[in-house]
């Protein structure tokens, strides 16, 4: 069970990072909406993953993406922030009766309402950190805020689409 999920997570990691640095890197909608789909890897880690592991994975993920974006440290900082807040945000979102044991974080198992409130807030925080760190100040505040909001929605939409696609594949296999 554990080995299977480890393999799964490794494949997930490779998939999201490769999609990010090969395909999505050059995708900018309307000159403002960027897509950072790789955060899905951090968001979708199993519920019971220890926070130290998530922090380290966040650091590694961000660092790898930074190498390809020539922005050393910026994605890393944003990802570590996301990784740290993730556990707390999940605790705050606990439904009445708590989570089921061994529950997976996915659109199918959690429902659209939980999933969107979970993802949107964390993506938004990640993007705030990312864009303002890249800007290195608050000079173009409203322009940047606009970029952050549009990018948050684009990233979220793409994650949901991938969820629907992979969900249908899994259900067919079962």
């Amino acid at each position, binding site marked *: 069970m554990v080995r299977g999920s480890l393999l799964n997570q490794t494949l997930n990691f490779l998939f999201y990072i490769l999609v990010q640095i090969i395909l999505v*890197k050059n995708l900018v909608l309307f000159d403002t909406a960027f897509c950072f789909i790789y955060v899905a890897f951090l968001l979708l880690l199993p519920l019971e993953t220890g926070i130290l592991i998530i922090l380290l994975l966040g*650091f590694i993920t961000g660092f790898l993406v930074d*190498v390809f974006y020539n*922005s050393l*440290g910026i994605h*890393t*900082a944003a990802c*570590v922030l996301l990784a740290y807040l993730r556990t707390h945000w999940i605790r705050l979102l606990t439904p009445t009766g708590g989570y089921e044991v061994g529950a997976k974080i996915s659109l199918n198992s959690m429902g659209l309402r939980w999933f969107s409130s979970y993802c949107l807030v964390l993506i938004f925080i990640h993007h705030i950190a990312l864009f303002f760190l890249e*800007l290195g100040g608050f000079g173009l505040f409203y*322009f940047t805020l606009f970029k952050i909001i549009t990018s948050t929605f684009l990233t979220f939409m793409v994650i949901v689409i991938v969820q629907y696609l992979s969900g249908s594949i899994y259900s067919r296999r079962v």
Partner: protein
Amino acid sequence: MQRLFQILLKYRAFIIFVLLEFLSGWLIIQNNQYQSAAFFNSSNALAGNIINATNYLSEYLSLRKVNQELSQENAILRNQLLRNPSVTTGSTSIDSTLSTEFEYIPAKVINNSTRRFKNYLTLNKGSNDGVEPGMGVIGIHGIVGVVKSSSNHFATIISLLHGNMLVSSKIESSNTLCTTKWDGVNPLRANLLYVPRHIELNIGDTVSTSGYNAIFPEKILIGTISQVKLPEDATFYDIRISLSTEFHGLSYVYVLQNNLKAEKISLEVNSITE
């Protein structure tokens, strides 16, 4: 002592979090230094090869445009030859120090961004071909950027579209020295700073490099003035220029190797310290 360990254990997640954030902050500061021998960027071997492979597939999509541009450049060069036949006959009337100061290293852009606040390019030539940090990069239509770091086969370029990039420039009509800086919003426009208010300006005036440094030679095109404002109490004009280089579709560029850079800089440093 035991209590200390208990506290450390209790807040271990927060401590690790703060540590990792400090590490990221340190990386950001390291990376912001103007030219560095940074290893962890798109010019390292792994990243460069992956980017190169992706580019190998996607370059077919822009072949038509690249061909057009190259033939356009050929036409411009042929026209220059017609006007200046001494180049072909090898006449010695050209000043030999000037003619050998800069050498061009052709390179292909394999990775490019224009929509971020700090944009970079990756080239497929590295230190094996003579590309070193600090060299200038120009395209067919004008200035492109400066080499940030280079590995054996790849180089990372700080684009002109980078918030920290300042280029010493000159308004051709009046020979006014000024500075070009990108504002972070529109990849087709930039600002021209430090033009004093007594200078006469016209919309459409050409702005080019000043040649007062060892990176770019004189008269490399930067753009043309598109908008001029003069606030009542300001010392300097607010000038917008439209950039001559179309960064979005860059395909082939030239890295400028300055053979006299060491001589020029050491002379300048010597005369300052005396």
